[in-house]
């Protein structure tokens, strides 16, 4: 766990909205956090909390009718939000790489694996001979634990776990500084999940990169990340080191999330969170969580809580944190 | 309703064109003497004038009368063939899609083979084999004989998609019988799609019938649009510069096809909500 305060990736006040005929959807509402070198940062939240939008926004991949309304993203000294489109394109994969969600369909079905690695390398300006490319591909596949034959295969010839690891191989081929893994293990069974997460951890250590793990599986987060950020209704309602979040969560939502995790020790009924996550275009006034919050009071429906420092390394957005 | 028409511009244009056509036929039926559509009725080869707004042809027919008399005939052939095509096609499609197995394989194979063969050629063979010239109704039947192929295929694939939907499963669990499910659950959801298929089937039927007629294989004595064009080519009207002879049927055929085309596109938009334009 890194104790240094220098930021590798800095997100400040990011706002993303979508135009919908029935109203504007605030998918990401004034989100700020920093990612430290070599760190594993988790971004958790329910479906519709805005976490996937956040990953796209960091890579400046938001398309109409969505638009980035404000905020800045910095990769070390580079202002990502101010780069030209071509500069952003070159930053993708080389500076910040994404391992996509739904690897079932993230690979081009008519192109071989080695060419899907090859075109990324070529489009970033590196010319490799066929032999060099083959060697590079073989090394990459080895790093993710895939046999060399995988290079000449098509995606439909691979299993789900293999496809996901192929995506990881693509993501690391240019030695990025930051890897954003967007729900990399959804639709995979637990055994394969473990393989994929181990692979991810190993390549991260090899590269000395930082990882942002986006997902909703709290158990997975607990096992993998150093620090965790919880998103709700487009806002980052709590950020803290993982131990702290598990043992002493500050925000009521986080608390309910932790409580809802099934445990081997404690037997009893499943505990969920009552109610449904609000529609992002129709948020309740004040704190977005107050309709479902066991601690809510009158002021919660009027005053929107700001993000405050509540411990040396933790922030939360709650009046009672 | 009008608001929807404003949004679905294709539907609007299609309906508009077809309305103009209907008006032409109706008003014409009352104001024009269709006896003049017969040969040797009026002076031959007159360019358009007050007396003969569409001019006259070489055999002495008043072309306006010919158009007024012939357009309904052409449309009639198309409609009859189109309706039979979709009717038979839908019945076969439902049967094939619902019962599956051997039934499905047989129906599907016949339809697929039939579709690969160019329809016009088969129609030519049929028309040539029928001794003597055809009446308008016989023409419709001839065209209808192939008109069911495409509807069978497309409706079948739509039914197959719908069959996997949840409400069909529930109906089955509730004990509804096969035919009952077809009629009560699948049909209502297919209606917009069936309408679109019907319109395109009519359009294809008109195209086939006009094609046959231009080759001289249609009802030779009738003043249908295609036959008029046949006479145009037979008499080398283009080279001789009698432009009015072919302009009238051309414009009407264009209106028919464009009208039906836009109507199909408009109906497609209703049938497939994903195609709907967001404002």
């Amino acid at each position, binding site marked *: 766990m890194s104790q240094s305060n220098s930021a590798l990736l800095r997100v400040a006040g990011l706002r993303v909205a979508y135009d919908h005929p029935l109203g504007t959807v605030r998918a990401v509402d004034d989100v700020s956090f920093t990612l430290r070198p070599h760190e594993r940062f988790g971004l958790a939240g329910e479906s519709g909390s805005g976490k996937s939008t956040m990953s796209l926004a960091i*890579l400046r*991949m938001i398309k109409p009718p969505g638009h980035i309304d404000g905020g800045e993203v910095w990769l070390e000294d580079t202002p990502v939000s101010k780069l030209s489109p071509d500069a952003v*394109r070159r*930053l*993708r*994969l080389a500076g910040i*790489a*994404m391992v*996509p*969600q*739904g690897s*079932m*369909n*993230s*690979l*081009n*079905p*008519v*192109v071989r694996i080695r060419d899907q690695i090859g*075109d*990324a390398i070529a*489009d*970033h300006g590196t010319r490799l001979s066929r032999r060099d490319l083959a060697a590079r591909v073989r090394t990459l596949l080895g790093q993710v634990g895939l046999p060399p034959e995988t290079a000449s295969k*098509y995606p*439909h010839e691979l299993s789900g776990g293999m496809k996901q690891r192929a*995506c990881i191989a*693509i993501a690391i081929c240019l030695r990025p500084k930051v890897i954003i893994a967007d729900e990399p293990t959804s639709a995979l069974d637990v055994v394969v999940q473990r393989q994929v997460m181990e692979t991810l951890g190993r390549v991260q250590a090899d590269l000395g990169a930082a990882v942002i793990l986006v997902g909703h599986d709290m158990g997975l987060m607990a096992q993998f990340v150093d620090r965790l950020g919880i998103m709700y209704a487009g806002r980052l309602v709590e950020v803290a080191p993982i131990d702290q979040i598990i043992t002493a969560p500050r925000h009521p939502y986080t608390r309910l999330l932790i409580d809802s995790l099934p445990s081997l020790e404690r037997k009893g009924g499943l505990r969920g969170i009552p109610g449904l996550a609000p529609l992002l275009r129709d948020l309740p006034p004040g704190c977005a969580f107050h309709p479902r919050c066991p601690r809510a009071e009158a002021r919660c429906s009027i005053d929107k809580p700001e993000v405050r420092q509540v411990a040396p390394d933790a922030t939360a957005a709650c009046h009672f944190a | 309703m009008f608001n929807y028409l404003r949004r679905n511009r294709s539907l609007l244009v299609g309906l508009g064109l077809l309305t103009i056509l209907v008006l032409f036929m109706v008003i014409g039926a009352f104001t024009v003497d269709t006896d003049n559509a017969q040969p040797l009725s009026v002076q031959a080869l007159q360019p358009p004038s007050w007396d003969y707004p569409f001019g006259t042809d070489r055999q002495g027919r008043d072309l306006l009368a010919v158009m007024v008399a012939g357009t309904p005939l052409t449309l009639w052939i198309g409609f009859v063939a189109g309706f039979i095509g979709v009717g038979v096609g839908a019945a076969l499609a439902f049967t094939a899609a619902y019962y599956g197995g051997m039934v499905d394989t047989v129906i599907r194979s016949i339809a697929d083979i039939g*579709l*690969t*063969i*160019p*329809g*016009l*050629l*088969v129609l*030519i*063979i049929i028309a*040539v084999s029928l001794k003597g010239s055809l009446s308008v109704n016989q023409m419709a039947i001839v065209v209808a004989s192939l008109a069911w192929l495409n509807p069978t295929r497309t409706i079948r694939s739509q039914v197959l998609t719908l069959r996997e939907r949840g409400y069909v499963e529930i109906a089955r669990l509730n004990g509804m019988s096969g035919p009952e499910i077809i009629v009560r659950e699948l049909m209502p959801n297919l209606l917009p799609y069936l309408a679109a298929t019907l319109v395109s089937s009519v359009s294809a039927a008109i*195209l086939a019938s*006009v*094609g046959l007629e*231009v*080759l*001289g*294989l249609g009802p030779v004595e009738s003043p249908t649009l295609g036959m008029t*064009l046949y006479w145009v*080519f037979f008499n080398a009207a*283009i*080279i001789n*510069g009698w*432009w009015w002879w*072919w302009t009238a049927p*051309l414009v009407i*055929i*264009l209106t028919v*096809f*464009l009208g*039906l*085309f*836009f109507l199909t596109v408009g109906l497609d938009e209703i049938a497939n909500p994903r195609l709907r334009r967001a404002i």
Partner: protein
Amino acid sequence: MHAGIEDMVKVYQQKFGLDKPLWRQYLNYLGDVSQGNLNYSIANYPRTVVSMIRDALPWTVALLGLTTLFSFAAGTFLGALLAWPGAPRWLQWFMPPLWALHAIPFFLLGLVLMYLFAFQFQWLPIFGGYSAGATPSLTWTFTLDVLRHAILPALSIVLVSVGGWALAMRGMMVTTMGEDYVTFAEAKGLRSATIFTRYCIRNAILPQTTGLALALGQILSGAVLVEVIFGYPGIGALLFQAIEENDFFLIQGIVFTVIVALGFATFVLDILYPWLDPRISYRRA
């Protein structure tokens, strides 16, 4: 005199086997066809059906083959560009006229073009495959002559077809562009051109090619009429002539040839398909 004609009819009937029962005639037919004998042309005796078809077929294959390939290629590429946000905006102006054009049958457009360019403006010849009196030979002048005669029929087919292909491809592209692998391609920082060709077109072209295979029959039907009105000496015009002359054998022969040719073309496309889409394979899984 009367008796003489009746005898002649009987002799012809015997010769062509028309006096035998129907099923016998059919068997004879199958036997003959398998040997490549499509019989004599009734109206153009003693020319054989095969020789007449052999003269006309290359014209049709050339016209249809080239125009179909061109329309498919141009239309598909245009459609792809129309769907791509990075393409120039003025391309969109092409769509409405092409769209409207593709709803009308080939031969109607042919009629209009013929009137405009051959009659009114007198730029191009009215009909035929080559000028009357010219002798077919592989000279430059003859080739040019052929091309001049082929422009109008070709244009009638191309102008109508391009719109259809463009429209279809545009639809496919829109669907493809929404796929996850295109999103990932963008996240990989690939160049716009790479994504356009290798990720979008490469995938959208698959259903487009299926469409081509299915449309072959229709294209042929339309082409027959085009040949007729332009007097282009291909299979279509031959068929028309055969119909006028009630030449059953020739009609049968032409239809047979056409169906075989179409079957072959579809077969070729079927073979090509696994090469385009590696997910399809004809081996047992």
